[in-house]
């Protein structure tokens, strides 16, 4: 189960690359961090968000969940971005390490429970 998530997320990273580099000038001018729906698969919908520092956030939602609106996803990404910033500000955190922050985990869990 976990492996298939990893696979889905990995594939979506390629789509992120496409989205930010492929569309040429029009997209490069956009200051939008939210990348929207990356690609729908049979089982999941995958949404992307990339910061100016090239940090990518990916949210994977069950396809059967049709009640989640675009602005709710956007707000989830904003919360993730803010929590991530707090993790980065922990002087004991080395950028690139897996995140082991209790505060971050609790915000993510709360967010996932609230969404469904």
């Amino acid at each position: 189960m976990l492996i298939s998530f990893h696979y889905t997320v990995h594939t979506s990273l390629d789509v992120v690359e496409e989205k930010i580099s492929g569309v040429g000038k029009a997209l490069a001018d956009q200051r939008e961090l939210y990348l929207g729906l990356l690609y729908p698969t049979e089982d999941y919908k995958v949404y992307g968000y990339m910061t100016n520092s090239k940090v990518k956030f990916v949210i994977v939602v069950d396809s059967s969940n049709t009640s989640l609106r675009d602005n709710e996803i956007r707000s989830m990404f904003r919360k993730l971005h803010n929590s991530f910033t707090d993790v980065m500000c922990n002087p004991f955190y080395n950028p690139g390490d897996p995140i082991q922050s209790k505060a971050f985990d609790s915000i993510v869990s709360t967010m996932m429970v609230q969404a469904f």
Partner: protein
Amino acid sequence: PLKHNSELFTLTYGALVTQLCKDYENDEEVNKQLDKMGYNIGVRLIEDFLARSSVGRCHDFRETADVIAKVAFKMYLGITPSVTNWSPAGDEFSLILESNPLVDFVELPDNHSNLVYSSLLCGVLRGALEMVQMAVDVRFAQDTLRGDNVTEIRMKFIKRIEENLPVGDE
């Protein structure tokens, strides 16, 4: 007084602590170094404090406690801890900090369970009070970073310092 965003201050202190952790590889030693640095800051900061706050000489330790909590902490850290837990002899009290700008965003990793992250504050208080002829002992009794609900600094009056003893850097 200018209002600064405290993130640079918080991150600077964090960088200092983590560098010390790398240099000394021993939590107790890092605590000592932070305390020493704090002391060197305190013996200087007291002059700035006395000049800016125009507080008169404190008549007793209770007055000192109030000045520390309501004037000094407010001036330098923007917080006002509460003064509680006085000893019967009136020579020891606690400062309870609900928040502490030094520790914003900080989470102690498991391998630093003996680190008293804000040890600098103990040294600052000790150094500052020494310059007004008071020898005190300052330590953290509770620390939110180590799982307690509040942060508690315990201050104990040791003795009055005679004016003609020279005081230098540690």
